[in-house]
């Protein structure tokens, strides 16, 4: 299984979930993506946004000053127009 890490430390809303979705776009279905965020609100909002998208949220774990969100790609996001 493909496992990728996306470090979003220092990133702000809405770019946290935009970047997570863009990264997922590039991955095959079934791929595992670990998203790192360092803002408490993002640890709540990013999983909600990805779940809404149809992705599987495996876990959200706090690690010192950041959170690790583990996602499995279950749907193809389509952010680009045209």
């Amino acid at each position, binding site marked *: 299984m493909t496992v990728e890490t996306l470090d979003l430390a220092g990133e*702000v*809303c*809405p*770019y946290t*979930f*935009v970047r997570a*979705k863009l990264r997922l776009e590039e991955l095959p279905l079934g791929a595992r993506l670990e998203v790192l965020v360092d803002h408490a*609100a*993002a640890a709540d*909002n990013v999983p*909600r*946004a990805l779940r*809404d*998208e*149809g992705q599987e949220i495996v876990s959200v774990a706090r690690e010192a000053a950041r959170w690790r969100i583990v996602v499995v790609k279950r*749907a193809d*996001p*389509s*952010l*680009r*127009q*045209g």
Partner: protein
Amino acid sequence: MSGAVALELGVLVADAGQLGRALDLCAHADDAQLFLMDDGVRAAHEPRLRAAIDDGLEATLCAMDAEARGVAPVDGGPRFGSQFDHAVMVRQARRVMAITGGRIDDNDVLAPPGPGRRVALRLTRPADDPKIAQALRSAVAYAACEMAVIVVVEPPARALLAHEDHPAPVLRALGTLRALGHRFCEVASTSTRVRCDLEVSW
């Protein structure tokens, strides 16, 4: 992506002074959501808002804007959310009201709830007005929720597209929207309409 569940009314408030008007609108709907952002978050602790939440109103605010203005969470107050909540509200509501501190938009949205809705983001202020950056930030969230954004630049905001000497948040939002293929449209008059499903004016 969840697109089937419709919401009767979604109200965006970016001006705390208009909270009463927004709450009056919500009181007349069976199923309403309120989203506070920008200076609208200053209304978070208003007793009228807490009373409406007690009566069942779903109210959320932009946690980032609240943090920037020193507005802390309070028991019984609005939920601290994100622009994602704002965008989902706009994506799902059959009626969308936008009260951002200038022109008020009241949209009966004929397009079905879900991705693909076309949102015209009308910029009515000078390009260096801080609300322009907020408007563009919210447009990025609309794009992330797979709506089609048309940034409509009215005459007062014309400088937005005339040069690149803008604050970093504005440049980033412009770059993101362009990279994702969203449209920009400069209009000669505030009355010029573009083809869309709903308008949000800032």
